[in-house]
């Protein structure tokens, strides 16, 4: 029984290579190919020196991943867009503070996760119902459009059940604390290593691990109640 068969791999759009980053030294963590990494460091330095073109190139490397994360965490295209905006504007403003003490990937993700956490916390205190995922015009997005399953479309009942289950899952995720949700999101949906997660959230791998345990335990309890 191989544990490997169950891993959720990052989806193809993920910016980062699937090799285990902990096996590389932190200075090499970002890309396997050292010339790729050197290019990014040059881009960063150029952007720090004022090159807007270099900054734009950096943005292009990460903006899809940022949007994916924000969209999945917030369930709202508008919120994802806002977070994307704020994150990169912050990056632009504070790029001078980046001193290569971590990877740029970590740095950007830190900014995004903080913005997402703020939003999640505000929502918790609003206790607004985020039952459905909305697109920018307010229309409900079918959560299952990305799942291609021809059998499901031939069987409407089953499709309805899946929709309901997907709903329940969103509700279950909403019951986690913002931090638990964030760790679960980064681990389960974005496929990051616990060590990277710890770095991004400015905490230890151990803490990230414990948060993951709490999250999975809570999710199991919530979903079990629904059967």
């Amino acid at each position: 029984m191989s544990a490997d068969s169950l891993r959720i791999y990052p989806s193809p759009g993920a910016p980062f290579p699937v090799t285990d980053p902990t096996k590389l030294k932190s200075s090499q963590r970002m890309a396997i190919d050292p010339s790729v990494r050197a290019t990014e460091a040059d881009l960063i330095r150029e952007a720090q020196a004022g090159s807007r073109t270099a900054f734009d190139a950096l943005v292009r490397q990460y903006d899809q991943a940022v949007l994916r994360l924000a969209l999945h965490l917030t369930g709202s295209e508008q919120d994802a867009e806002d977070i994307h905006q704020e994150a990169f504007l912050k990056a632009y403003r504070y790029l001078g503070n980046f001193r290569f003490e971590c990877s740029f990937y970590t740095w950007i993700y830190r900014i995004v996760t903080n913005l997402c956490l703020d939003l999640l916390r505000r929502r918790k205190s609003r206790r607004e119902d985020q039952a459905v995922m909305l697109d920018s015009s307010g229309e409900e997005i079918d959560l299952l459009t990305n799942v291609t399953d021809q059998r499901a479309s031939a069987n409407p009942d089953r499709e309805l059940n899946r929709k309901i289950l997907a709903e329940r899952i969103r509700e279950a995720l909403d019951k986690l604390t913002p931090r638990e949700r964030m760790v679960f999101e980064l681990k389960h949906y974005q496929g990051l290593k616990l060590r990277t997660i710890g770095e991004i959230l400015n905490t230890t791998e151990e803490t990230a691990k414990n948060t993951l345990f709490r999250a999975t335990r809570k999710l199991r309890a919530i979903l079990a109640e629904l059967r």
Partner: protein
Amino acid sequence: MKCESAQETIVLAVYGELPDDKAPEFEQHLAGCERCRQEFEAVKALSVAMSLVPSGDPPANLVARSRLRLEEALDAIPRGSWLARNWRQFGQGIGRLRGAPAAVSAVVVASLTLGGVSGYEVSQHSHASPVAQTRYSTVPPEDNAPDNVANVTSIVQEPNSENVEVVYNRLQPVTVSGSLGDPKIRQLLLIGARNRVNSEVKDDSVGLLAHECRAGHECSDGPVRDALLVALRYDKSAAVRLKALEGLQPYVSDDLRVRDTVLESLLKDPDSRVRTQAIGLLEPVGADSSVREVLHTVAARDDNPEIRLASRQVLDQIPQVQ
């Protein structure tokens, strides 16, 4: 391996975080323990179930929209604003002058004062406003000017002599006049609103921008509203925060970001006048449950009795939810 520690190990295994050296022990335990095998299957099932909410790539139009919006915002940030440019060159200049601390501090003082002075001149002129056209003039450079120095970038001593060659950058103060509706003036006011060195310039800029927003002149989005939100959240002067509130008033109904920031001010602002004004701004949007929640909190816990009373009064006026 015991069953108690196996529970957490199972989660690690399902998520690919099981250290390689623990794998054999774990697999052996699973082979011999029915309960843990079931647990393993349960966590696997959770993982599969959670994946029913797909996390695919964001829709293409969202990506396009976001990129466009970001580009517009970046374009609106004036490039090479003197402070940004000079701070960076400053950083490099400092490196070279490391052995001459006195020179460094002189340059610091010079560029800060100059920045303050030129910024102030701009705001003076934009006050005097009702000129329809925008005029630009530059101060003629003085050749012997030790005063107009932005920074020094190189010092080379001629060998065996007392001669020194210095390369420096000069600051060119520019004076502009124009009406508040002129986009160039507006852009300058936005920069002025961020001036951390000269608070008079900052206050005047925020005040003018707020005035424009209040009058409904082209504040529909973006940088001006953002500048007011920043001033409301972070400015140290209560008078400035009050002005920012005034400017944001027309947007409390439509713009949730504005509403949220005003709610934050009501909860956290140290100045009672700001909190009082915030209540006034929130009156028309009492239907929002978050607004009511905050008003309840303030009515119970604010230090100031008048504010508690004002919150209660607003709450009483809101038609009851069915």
